[in-house]
C-alpha cells in the first residue's frame, strides 16, 4: 500500500471517528482486565491529534507523523500514550532515514518501536498481537479487514503477560485486549483511507 500526506490525514481523521464512536466499547473492554480508561485515553489523544493537525497543517507525511507522535506523547499518558507514541515515532524514524521506504517497512518500524518500549511478545495479549500479524500480512500484500478482525479475536483466549491485564492472571482469559481492539481500529481506518 502507498501512504502520502493526504491519505495520512484522512487516516487519522477516520481513526479518530472510529475511536470516538467506540470510546465506550473500548472502556468496556478495559473493565474486566484493566482499569476502564482505554476509551478515554484514546479519545482524548485522537481529539488532540485532530486539533493539532488542524492547527498546524503539516505539509509532509513526515511532518504529520511527527505531529502525531508529539501529541500522543505529551497528551495521552497511560500505557497507550507512550506505546502509540512510540509506534508513530518508530514509523517516523524509518521514513526519515529513507523517504522512499515502502509503507510496510514504515509500519514494521512502528511495531519494532512498540516492542522495544513495551517488551511484549506475540501472545502476551497486547496491541502487539494485532500489529504483528497486520505488518506481516501487509508485507505479504495480504492485509484485509478479515485479517485484522481475526487478530483481535485471537487475543481473547490468551492469558495476559504484559500491561495491567497481567495482574489479574487467569482471569484475563476470555476477554479481548482493549489495546488490540484500538489497534484494529487504527488499521481498519488505514485500509479505509486507501479505499477512498
Amino acid at each position: 500500500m502507498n501512504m502520502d500526506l493526504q491519505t495520512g490525514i484522512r487516516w487519522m481523521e477516520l481513526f479518530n471517528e472510529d475511536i470516538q464512536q467506540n470510546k465506550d466499547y473500548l472502556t468496556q473492554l478495559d473493565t474486566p482486565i484493566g482499569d476502564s480508561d482505554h476509551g478515554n485515553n484514546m479519545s482524548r489523544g485522537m481529539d488532540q491529534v485532530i486539533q493539532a493537525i488542524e492547527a498546524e497543517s503539516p505539509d509532509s507525511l513526515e511532518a504529520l507523523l511527527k505531529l502525531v507522535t508529539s501529541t500522543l506523547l505529551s497528551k495521552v499518558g497511560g500505557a497507550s500514550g507512550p506505546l502509540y507514541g512510540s509506534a508513530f515515532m518508530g514509523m517516523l524514524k524509518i521514513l526519515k532515514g529513507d523517504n522512499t521506504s515502502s509503507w510496510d517497512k514504515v509500519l514494521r518500524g512502528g511495531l519494532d518501536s512498540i516492542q522495544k518500549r513495551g517488551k511484549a511478545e506475540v501472545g502476551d495479549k497486547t496491541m502487539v498481537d494485532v500489529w504483528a500479524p497486520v505488518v506481516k500480512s501487509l508485507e505479504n500484500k495480504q492485509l484485509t479487514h478479515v485479517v485484522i478482525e481475526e487478530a483481535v479475536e485471537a487475543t481473547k483466549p490468551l492469558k495476559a503477560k504484559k500491561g495491567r491485564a497481567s495482574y489479574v492472571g487467569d482471569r484475563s482469559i476470555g476477554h479481548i485486549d482493549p489495546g488490540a481492539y484500538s489497534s484494529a481500529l487504527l488499521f481498519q481506518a488505514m485500509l479505509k483511507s486507501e479505499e477512498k
Partner: protein
Amino acid sequence: MKKIINTPDTLMMEMINGIVLAHPELELINKYKVIKKKKMNDEKVTLISGGGSGHEPAHAGFIGKGMLDAAVCGEVFASPSQIQVYQAIKETQSNKGTLLIIKNYSGDIMNFKNAAHLAKEDGAVVDYVKVEDDIAVEDSLYTVGRRGVAGTVLVHKIAGAAAEEGRSLSDVKTVAQKAADSVRSIGIALTSGTVPAKGTPTFTLEDDEMEYGVGIHGEPGIRREKMMSASQLAERMVKDLLKDLKVSDDNEEELVVLINGFGATPLQELYLFNNEVARELSERNVKICRTFVGNYMTSVDMAGVSVSLMKLDDELKSLINKESDTPAFKVSG
C-alpha cells in the same frame, strides 16, 4: 452514578484546583497538571511522584516537609504523560538531583522513565525507584512484577525524611529502595468503585461477597469470596503479609502498620480493623513501631481496606519517626 462532580471531563482539573485552594502552601502548574511546594529547597534531593488520579489524597496530599516536593497528576487511572513528568522534573530541579517514586504499572513506568530520559538529555540529574508492594499479584520472570499500592506512601515518607536530612541522590535512592523492598500490602474490596468517565461500577459483588487481593484501579482481585468477619480477615491478611515478608513468630521484628481505606469505607471500620490487625501482630510477637489509619491510597469510591506492613531496621525506624508535615500525612517528629 451519583457523584458530587460537574462532568467527568473537567473533574481532574477541578479537583486539583480544589487541592491547592485548600492548601495554599502548594501551587499548581496548570499547563502540566503538576502540584508542587511553593517554597522549594535547593539543597535537598527533589522527590516527585504521581500517577493517575482517583487515588486521592495520593499523591498531592503527600507534598510537604519530609515527604514529596511535587506530584504529577494524570486523568483518573491514567498515568500522566511523559511530557507532564518531564516538565515536573524541569520545574523542580535542585542542586542535589531528583528522585522519581513510581508505582509499578506499565504506563507509569514508561512515562516516568521516558521523562527521566528526556530530562537527563537536558542535563538534569534524575533517578527513580519503583514500588511493587502488592502481594496479591504473582511475581515471576514472565510477568511485569507486582503492582504498587498503598505501601508507596511509606516509601514517600522514608525517602522524604532522608532527603530532608540533606542526603545525596544516591543515598536517598538507596534507602527509598530499601523501603520499597521492605513493604508489602494486600487489599480487599466490599464494593466496586465507579470510574467517573465510565459511569457504572467496574464490577459487581453480592451482599455477602468480597474480592480478596484487589488493586487500586478496580481490577478484580485474586478471588471472589464470601465476606468474613473483621477478625478472620485480619488473621488472613496478616498471615499472608508476614509470610511474604518472611517474618515468623520468633523474629522479634518491628513493623510499621498502615491501614488504608479505599475511599468509601469510613474510619469507624478502619479503626476497628486496626484493632484486629494489632491483635494478630501481638499474638505473633511482632512489635508495632507506628500505625497509620486512614484513606491514603484510594480507588475512587471503592469500599474496602488494605493493610501494608513495612519491616524496619534502625535506619528505616529513625526515618519513619521524623517529622512530616503534608496535607494528608503528618508525623510530629
